[in-house]
């Protein structure tokens, strides 16, 4: 049986387990004089049975699947004559892959050496055996567990706390998956970066002023200086983020003040979701909006007033990114402004302050830590934004702080380094991981800083 069919079948068994245990508990209750005589509600006995069956069997299946390939490989290689088994790992892997392709029928088996054919046949047999044994074993295991769960149902067995504990463990496991994934990502980036820093000194990377990642793959290649100074990239990133912030912060903040302080309920009900639609537009759409609409308009405008604006300017990318970030800032600012107690506003108004004086002198100062936190979160969003800059900002790694020039960003370079045909041990490819690591560290620090500020704000009125 296919594994997916098997899992489906197990779910059918689980449904059976649920109803059989539930019904048994109901019939026990009937004899005793009502459900209140049971230690737990009937559905808890059912759930207990389901969990008792599914959790161990599914764990068993996933363990089997993760190991069976390895075991089969060992068994196959054992039978291959010693002289054919290569010693170095990559050739060994190549051989295994070839055998797998033959046994899967991808490579026609008339042109291959007979020892490979034998190995392929053996591999095929072993996988069939493995498939059959897991099917039989898991169904056998499931039936025993269903029966066991069914037998355990009695008026004295309290299934409720058991189900509670299992639920808690399952929730814990889900939380762990997210945490381990994060840790896994960090380590994979970290190890590749360490490899990169073996080839390129850390100092050159962080303080180098020239970025030109083309390295020679062959000896005779030309035009491949390969210098990895990340400064132009980070300057470009900061420049574009700055342009974005110059646009997003005032507009976002002012729209938040309007929505939180001035707008009546019907305007708010209309304006707030509309503003949030901005957040729902895919960034790639913003990207071609920037590249196809905004950038040419800016360039033509520059020509008409005698300014030289590059057609892929930091200004165009930053401006569109700023528009993308407006709802982000306005929504956080709106929340913190609304969280300022009404009594503050009343106090100020009762002193004879106008509405805007109240906003300026009391509401905004009181909400400031939260607003700053929101802005910092928005900055880390801007720094990490990729699609808009890929499409609108270009690839030229100019070291420039003029927003009218073409610049490039860290994320754009990561994309270009890792797309297309790659060699995974060249400095060029590994540079992407180093950039990613640095970007990660920067945004992590910004986020921690922002969260600290937001947390401080929460305690302010208590």
């Amino acid at each position, binding site marked *: 049986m296919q594994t997916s069919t098997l899992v489906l079948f197990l779910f059918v068994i689980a449904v059976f387990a649920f109803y059989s245990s539930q019904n048994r508990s109901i019939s026990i209750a009937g004899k005793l004089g009502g459900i209140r005589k049971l230690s737990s509600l009937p559905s808890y006995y059912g759930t207990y049975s389901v969990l008792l069956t599914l959790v161990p069997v599914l764990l068993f299946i996933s363990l089997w699947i993760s190991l069976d390939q390895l075991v089969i490989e060992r068994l196959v290689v054992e039978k291959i004559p010693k002289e054919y088994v290569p010693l170095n790992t990559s050739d060994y892997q190549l051989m295994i892959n070839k055998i797998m392709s033959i046994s899967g029928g991808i490579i026609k088996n008339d042109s291959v050496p007979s020892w490979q054919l034998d190995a392929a046949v053996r591999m095929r047999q072993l996988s069939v055996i493995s498939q059959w044994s897991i099917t039989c074993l898991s169904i056998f295991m499931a039936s025993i567990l269903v029966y066991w769960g069914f037998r355990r149902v009695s008026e004295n067995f309290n299934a409720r706390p058991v189900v509670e504990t299992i639920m808690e463990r399952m929730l814990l496991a889900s939380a762990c998956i997210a945490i381990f994934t994060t840790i896994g990502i960090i380590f994979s980036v970290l190890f590749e970066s360490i490899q990169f820093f073996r080839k390129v000194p850390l100092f050159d990377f962080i303080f180098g002023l020239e970025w030109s990642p083309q390295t020679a793959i062959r000896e005779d290649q030309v035009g491949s200086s390969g210098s990895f100074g990340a400064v132009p990239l980070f300057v470009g990133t900061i420049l574009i983020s700055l342009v974005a912030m110059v646009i997003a912060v005032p507009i976002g903040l002012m729209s938040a003040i309007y929505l939180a302080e001035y707008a009546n309920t019907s305007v708010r009900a209309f304006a707030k979701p509309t503003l949030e639609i901005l957040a729902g537009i895919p960034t790639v759409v913003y990207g071609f909006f920037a590249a196809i609409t905004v950038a040419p308009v800016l360039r033509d405008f520059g020509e008409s007033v005698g300014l030289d604006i590059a057609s892929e300017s930091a200004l165009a990318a930053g401006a569109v990114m700023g528009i993308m970030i407006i709802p982000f800032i306005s929504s956080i600012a709106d929340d913190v402004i609304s969280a300022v107690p009404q009594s503050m506003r009343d106090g100020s108004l009762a*002193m*004879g302050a106008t509405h805007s004086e109240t906003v300026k002198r009391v509401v905004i100062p009181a909400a400031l830590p939260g607003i700053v936190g929101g802005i910092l979160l928005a900055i880390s969003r801007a720094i990490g934004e990729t699609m808009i800059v890929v499409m609108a900002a270009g690839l030229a790694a100019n070291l420039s702080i003029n927003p009218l020039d073409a610049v490039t960003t860290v994320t754009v370079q990561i994309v270009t380094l890792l797309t297309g045909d790659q060699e995974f041990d060249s400095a060029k490819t590994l540079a992407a991981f180093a950039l990613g690591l640095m970007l990660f560290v920067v945004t992590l620090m910004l986020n921690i800083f922002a969260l600290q500020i937001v947390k401080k704000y929460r305690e302010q009125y208590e």
Partner: protein
Amino acid sequence: MSNSKLSQSISTDGADPKISEQVLDVEKDLLSMESYSTIGNNLVEDAKMSVRNVNVFYGDKQAIFDVHMDIKKNEVIAMIGPSGCGKSTFLRTLNRMNDTIDSCVVSGEVTMDGENLYDPKLDVVELRARVGMVFQKPNPFPKSIFENVAYGPRLHGLADSKVDLDELVENSLKKAGLWEEAKDRLHQPGTGLSGGQQQRLCIARAIAVEPEVILMDEPCSALDPIATARIEELIEELSQNFTIAIVTHSMQQAARVSHRTAYFHLGKLIEVNPTETVFTMPEHKLTEAYITGRFG
């Protein structure tokens, strides 16, 4: 007509096994009445503020019915009554704080020194500088003690120099009885003070703009008895210079600090009399029932 009906229900009051039942009857009458008249001396000679035919609505719901009364210059007038009787709403009509509530509509006339406060041409901001307010829960701004008190003077340009401002802040804190406790920590946050100190800071903040009238909306309900006693003393002192209208849930407080007392019930102003009269020989059945604690 309605007046006679009310007095009738009072005069039929005999020695009373069924007083609470009768009170309920009076309350029912009051609810069904289209118009009514306030008992006692609600109108005075030298009025600072005059309230005529004031009705307040929150959307469809009417919160205040046809209130007529005067507030005398330099008196302390207490508004008492059961929860939801409209006394706070009434207080907020006096400096138009109800304007901040969208659904709230006020009709009638409120005048201060003969000037109609609900005149569309009147500048609300200026009015609120003349009629200060202290709220139920102390609400110092999250700024320093100094900045809290200097807030109003800065807004209205009351101090021309730093020296003037320092002096004004000091005087206000002295009048609010907070100077001794606060003089060494003027530049620390006002939110770091105790509840009672915060409330006195709010009073100092209110009197720093030299208002003519101070409205207090249950200023002691969030404070402990000792802090309450200090505020009550303060109200007594302030009454020499300011006209004070105070809403309170505590009848003892009303008896201690006020010169006149107004009793509100279900949005209607039932009785206004000198405080002593209200607490010793209330004229109206409902007032009597309330001050003797039969409901509230």
